[in-house]
């Protein structure tokens, strides 16, 4: 449930019952900004420029991260990279396992055929969202290449998928929760990425090692 984070992290109800407690801060606003800019540089370096690149964000937070990467590329490279949004809900293979999310918008700014599409998401976990995105992308055309940029790679892949550009590799337990909160998408005062854990699974976390 996307809500504003309490200023003093408190245990709160977890989706499957039980409670979650704050564990560690992964990124503060400055670190997140630097990671985003580094990813932007890596994208330009890998593709020897940005002229053919299209950034496609995966909701909810991917589009905003894509916009930030595009802004960074504009500032240091002087190139306007098109940014799009791709909602993959209809392409998921686990629809029957989880509640339906309201469908988000899909807007691709340009024909993706022959271009380099960089998919952008906040957290890479099982890889199923990315698989769905690859399928969805295929209904629009045939990109020359598809790359993947994420703020956090938390492991636990269920498919042979890897990221090309990673803000931070974060070892996690499967039951833990990586919470990304951005000013533009979550109404928080400052960007932040945190690791939360079920308090009844790992009691050490309940000690509240605050930031």
């Amino acid at each position, binding site marked *: *449930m996307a809500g504003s984070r309490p200023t003093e992290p408190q245990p709160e109800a977890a*989706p499957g019952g039980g409670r979650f407690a704050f564990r560690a801060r992964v990124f503060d606003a400055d670190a997140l900004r630097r990671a985003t800019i580094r990813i932007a540089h890596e994208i330009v370096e890998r593709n020897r420029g940005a002229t053919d690149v299209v950034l496609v964000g995966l909701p909810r937070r991917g589009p905003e991260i894509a916009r930030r990467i595009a802004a960074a590329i504009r500032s240091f490279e002087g190139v306007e990279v098109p940014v799009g949004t791709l*909602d993959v*809900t*209809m*392409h*998921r*293979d686990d*629809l*029957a*396992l*989880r*509640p*339906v*999310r*309201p*469908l*988000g*918008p*899909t*807007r691709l700014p340009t024909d993706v055929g022959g271009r380099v599409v960089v998919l952008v998401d906040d957290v890479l976990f099982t890889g199923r969202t990315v698989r769905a995105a690859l*399928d*969805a992308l*295929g*209904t*629009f*055309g045939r990109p020359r290449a598809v790359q993947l940029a994420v703020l956090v790679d938390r492991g636990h892949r269920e498919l042979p998928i890897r990221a090309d550009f990673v803000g931070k590799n974060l070892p996690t337990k499967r039951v833990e929760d990586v919470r990304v909160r951005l000013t533009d998408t979550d109404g928080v005062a400052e960007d932040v990425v945190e690791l939360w854990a079920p308090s009844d699974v790992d009691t050490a976390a309940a000690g509240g090692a605050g930031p």
Partner: protein
Amino acid sequence: MTGMRHLLGITGLDRPAIECYLDDAAAFWEVLGRDIPKVPALRGRTVVTLFLEDSTRTRLSFETAARRLSADTMSFQARGSSVAKGESLLDTVRTIEALGVDALVVRHPAAGAPHRIAGWVDAAVVNGGDGRHEHPTQALLDCFTLRRHLGTGLDGCRIGIIGDVAHSRVARSGVRAFSALGAEVTLIAPPTLLPERVETWPARVTHDLDAELAELDVAYVLRVQRERDAARRLPPLHEYYARYGLTEARAARMKPHAVVMHPGPMIRGLEVATTVADGPRSLVRDQVRAGVAVRMAVLFRLLGSPAGGDDA
């Protein structure tokens, strides 16, 4: 929206529930514009259209929607079926369900039939039109078409529903949906073609089309249902066209940006002039494409999640 297993009518849907369908339909409208207008969301699910009353466009629209979602479809029609041989509705429905069905789209000449069927089966039931009662997906697609055309909501939009209101499930569902979204609805019909208890509907009633024309943002023309006119309540047809037909002259007197809608099938020269139906004011073709998007949204919402699933 919680616990939504069936879509039986607009009655019982509040504004947020209607808007939820319309928002999803917007996402599917975008899918219909892709190179490959198909998504795998309902792969492995089976949708059956059970149409015990003649219909081509609604059935095709539902089947197209189901296939665009990668569901399998089967079609059951009264003509040439076991129903024609005297099988009861309950037996028909049980037989179909035994084939393994996730959703049943039901059209039936008797009001309330889809509600009965919903009580008999585990499958999701969508009302595809029952008697003179309801036709909820038509109302949703009309709302979607208008919302797209206006670029805003329907608040304050003046909609005139013209013609055979008495026999019309389209009008019954439409009035409820339009008014739930904030539109001001006026029913424009001869006294003989108004239903009983029309005063309980959330709409104004008038018999004078010419007096209303200049006020309308939308002229929603209904089909004259001669096949349902057992009581012979229709005036002679030339007289009907003279008073309630949307002629070119009448269309010319509407507001510059006013639009014309029709649920189809149209009877040109009786309800609406050909030049108006094909003219720049007409949204009729938009309505057809919207029908697929809206029906995708309905099937997706009823089938796309674990049974009884809530929104996360």
